[in-house]
């Protein structure tokens, strides 16, 4: 009879994860004990402190890991090596930036979340909650739990931990998706879809894990890698398992054909949560995918290349082409994120040492631009005929002429779009350059070529928005109570002739809504400003960050 030996726990190397998860647990208690009027302030500052703490912990571990190359923690459950720390730092930083947008309230004190998410939409109870000014401050601990899961996800060193981390990060996101203040039915529908498809993907992944375990007899990455280094004979079990494992990860990054949830969820979720999800989840999921592809199944490269290449090509092409015909800003950004998943995948498929650092850099700049872009979307609102600011103005036609009236906000948004498009002197260009170089270096030049062609196509829809914001002569913002005539609004868009799809949809919309930029407490503005700074600085002087990442991009086997 074997005796249980407790594994040695290296608490220090776990600290980023422990701080965030611990804070999340305490956040739940705060919810119970802190008086309602103080709750938001306390929760917000506590969450910010926790994420900052995680960031500091990553910084403290940095030089040690840089010199040692990394350590295994908790037996072989987790590994803290260079990529882990880079990814954890990126996630913590992006989570702080995203949290600022999440926390922001309009000048009338409305945040992005339903006053009482449990109430039935349209019910008396909902109305009562709204009048009482209730706030769903559980958002903060939920967000911390999700972030904690994301911090574990790329650090996992066995398949079971991988699965647990996936669930820890996913479940809070399902909840957060359903909590939008406006268009609540859409939001709840999105949450439902996300949950069902996510559960399906989890199940596939779990089955894949079981098959891989069946083949190799182990859950630990290192053991699986050594058993699969030279697969012989009956490897169909392994292949099917590996593909199913990849499917679970590809679902999280939103790669085609596992992307179907992305537009609905991005559109339905509260916009600040969309920003958080689009940036941080992608970082975590790509981190896990990188580790699996580089350290677990490199022996299967030849067998899996077909799958990975197909998925990469499909993701770039489908994401780009479908984004071209979108008329809703959030759906457009969703498909754009699908296309970006494809661009990042070219770096993953490359399977070169340079590929890892290129992907890590891309994730950082993509995350910053994404949070910034969704921050702007959150600020651009509809105003009804009575001058009351309502939900986000997500229809493209509503953005016409925004650049004339709000040059700074529209300018920031244009910068994020140019960065997405990969125009030189923005961070996006350096990122794209990195992954495409890695792809060419790794012999995947057809992917790089397709990638640049897709980028040119993607530039089309990004630029179309810039055109809409800056070149469309929208009338000056009418005062409250002076609704825009529908015909005027349609003319504005039709004039250029470049956006017929938008024009037809304008005519269908209620005429009484005008577009405005809502006044807020300013947190979102801080966040957008930070993202602008990152996008410009990393576009012009990327060297320090590139160097820092380059020294930290070796996986511990």
């Amino acid at each position, binding site marked *: 009879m074997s005796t249980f030996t407790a594994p040695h726990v290296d608490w220090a190397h776990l600290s980023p994860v422990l701080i965030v998860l611990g804070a999340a647990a305490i956040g739940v208690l705060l919810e119970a004990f802190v008086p309602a009027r103080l709750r938001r302030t306390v929760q917000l500052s506590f969450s910010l402190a926790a994420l900052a703490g995680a960031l500091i912990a990553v910084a403290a571990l940095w030089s040690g890991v840089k010199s040692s190359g990394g350590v295994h923690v908790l037996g072989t459950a987790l590994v803290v090596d260079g990529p882990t720390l880079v990814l954890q730092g990126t996630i913590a930083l992006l989570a702080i930036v995203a949290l600022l947008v999440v926390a922001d309230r309009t000048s009338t004190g409305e945040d992005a979340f339903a006053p009482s998410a449990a109430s039935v939409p349209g019910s008396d109870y909902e109305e009562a909650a709204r009048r009482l000014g209730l706030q769903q401050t559980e958002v903060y601990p939920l967000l911390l739990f999700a972030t904690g899961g994301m911090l574990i996800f790329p650090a996992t060193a066995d398949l079971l931990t991988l699965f647990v981390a996936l669930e820890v990060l996913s479940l809070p996101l399902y909840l957060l998706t359903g909590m939008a203040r406006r268009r609540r039915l859409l939001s709840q529908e999105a949450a439902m879809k996300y949950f069902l498809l996510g559960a399906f993907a989890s199940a596939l992944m779990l089955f894949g894990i079981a098959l891989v375990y069946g083949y190799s007899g182990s859950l630990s990455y290192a053991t699986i890698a050594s058993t699969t280094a030279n697969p012989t004979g009956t490897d169909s079990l392994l292949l099917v398992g590996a593909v199913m494992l990849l499917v679970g990860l590809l679902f999280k990054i939103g790669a085609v054909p596992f992307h179907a949830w992305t537009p609905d969820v991005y559109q339905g979720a509260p916009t600040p949560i969309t920003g958080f999800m689009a940036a941080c989840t992608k970082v975590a999921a790509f981190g896990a995918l990188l580790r699996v592809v580089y350290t677990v199944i490199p022996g299967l490269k030849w067998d899996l290349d077909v799958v990975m290449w197909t998925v990469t090509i499909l993701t770039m092409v489908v994401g780009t082409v479908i984004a071209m015909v979108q008329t809703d800003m959030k759906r457009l950004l969703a498909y754009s994120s699908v296309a970006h998943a494809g661009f990042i995948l070219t770096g993953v498929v490359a399977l070169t040492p340079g590929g890892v650092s290129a992907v890590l850099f891309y994730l950082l700049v993509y995350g910053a631009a994404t949070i910034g872009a969704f921050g702007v979307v959150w600020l651009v609102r509809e105003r009804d005929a009575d001058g009351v600011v309502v939900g986000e103005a997500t229809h493209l036609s509503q953005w016409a002429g925004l650049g004339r009236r709000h040059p700074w906000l529209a300018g920031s948004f244009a910068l994020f779009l*140019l960065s997405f*498009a*990969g*125009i*030189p*002197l923005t961070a996006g*260009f*350096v990122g794209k*350059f*990195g992954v*495409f*170089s890695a792809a*060419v*270096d790794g012999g995947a*030049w057809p992917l*790089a*070529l397709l990638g*640049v*062609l897709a*980028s*040119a196509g993607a*530039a*089309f829809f990004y*630029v*179309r928005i810039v*055109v809409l914001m*800056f*070149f469309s002569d929208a009338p000056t913002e009418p005062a409250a109570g002076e609704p825009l005539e529908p015909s005027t609004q349609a003319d504005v868009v039709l004039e*250029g*002739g*470049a956006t017929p799809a938008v024009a037809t949809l304008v005519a269908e919309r209620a005429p009484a809504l005008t577009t405005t930029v809502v006044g807020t407490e300013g947190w979102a503005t801080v966040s957008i400003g930070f993202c602008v700074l990152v996008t410009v600085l990393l576009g012009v*002087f*990327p*060297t320090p960050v*590139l*160097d820092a990442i*380059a020294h930290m991009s070796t996986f511990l086997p």
Partner: protein
Amino acid sequence: MSSDFPWLTALIVLPLVGAAVLWLLPAGARRHTRTVALAFTLAEVALGAGALLAFDTGDAGAQQLAETHQWIPSLGVSYAVGVDGVGLALLLMSVVLVPLVVLAAWREQGSTGAPSDRLRHFLALALVLEAFIVAVFSARDVFFFYVLFEAMLIPVYFMIGAFGGAQRRYAAIKFLIYSLTGGLIMLVAVIALYLQGPGGKQGFLTDNLTALTIDPTLEKWLFAGFFLAFAIKAPMFPVHTWLPDAAQNATPGTSVLLVGVLDKVGTFGMLTLCLPLFPAASRWAAPFVIVLAIVSIIYGALLAIGQKDLMRLIAYTSVSHFGFIVLGIFAFTSTSVAGSSFYMVNHGLSTGALFLIAGFLVARRGSQDIADFGGLQRVVPVMAGTFLVAGLSALSLPGLSTFVSEFLVLVGTFARHPAAAIVASLGVVLAAVYVLWTYQRIFTGPVRDGLETMPDLRTRERWAVGPLIAAMLVLGFVPGPALDLVRPPASVTLEQVGVTDVPASAAEGSTP
């Protein structure tokens, strides 16, 4: 100033400072918008003159005024600038054109009285563009060149899309998508080229990438990647269709910079990147490129003859002229290559003048349709005279600088490919048709109703056009100093391509 003053960096930074000043101009000082812009562009001209003085014309084949600093060492990227004779000539041509563009835009964008905010933004964008142009002509790092090649699109895109005519958004998007597609394909070639090179912290320096041994098939692909981007930019048949739309819908000032300067980046890139980096592939591709160039010459001229819109007409004449430039570059004789380099400068002056005067005409008439004009010779004699000179320069009349360059190109080409030169000369005949027929339709015959009171060129407008006419005449009669700038680089290029020069004895001393 000491001899190691960073002339090129100063030339790049000054317009950027100017743009920042214009954008940050406090509301009270905005009535000085035009003066500020003009002052910065003139200071840039003075700086350019300083650079010319610091440049050793006796050694024009070498890269001079060079500066090299690390930019992104982990990617092998340097900030490396330096010019040879050709780069310097194009750089000077560009900085001379910008103040004239400022003068021409004086009353545009709703600025009949005080300068409007739109004018301020337009001028600031023009200054940003000037900085990129100077940098692209002096870049000696392939990555740096690529960054500028793409980043340049953004100011131009806004200049067309926000300040142009009726179909401006369509034209701006078409311009951007064409250029981006070419540029991004070039990006793959840039990356692949880098991987062939020595790598390291200065792996993208042009010097480190020339004379590599590359697999012939790969070299052909890389050449194609670069050449496609440059052919779109130049623009050559069959990827030229964005240019007429852009020129038709942009303001005259934008067209001057776009056609007169920016498109030169295409031919400049063929000359300074395609040829030295991929010599074997260049030799391999030369016959195809020459055929394309001749098609561009004839096709551009024929379409120019058929145009009803004045601006589109000028755009098509440029397609024809770019055909000549490319023909000269790929004929691989020292005479033709030097002729093409000189042609690039002259085409900037000549097309610049044509676009500016056409812009003045259009602004007065409120229409770009040639049929809306007629008999203006008696009403606006100065305008008619300057238009005629600019037009004659487009058909390469002896005595004007364009004649020298076109002659050199044809003579140089004849030495290697007689048939090509003979077919290309047809383009000269067609040029006479489109220039003289246009002049006839606009300026001769009975005066059209409503045009009797059209005012002639104002002092400001004369200052905008005068320098160009003067430059064309001076360079036409005394081309020697300019040719001294472009001849040595031509020999260097031929050496890099590895072809023996075919002497074109007739060309020597042929200057009128």
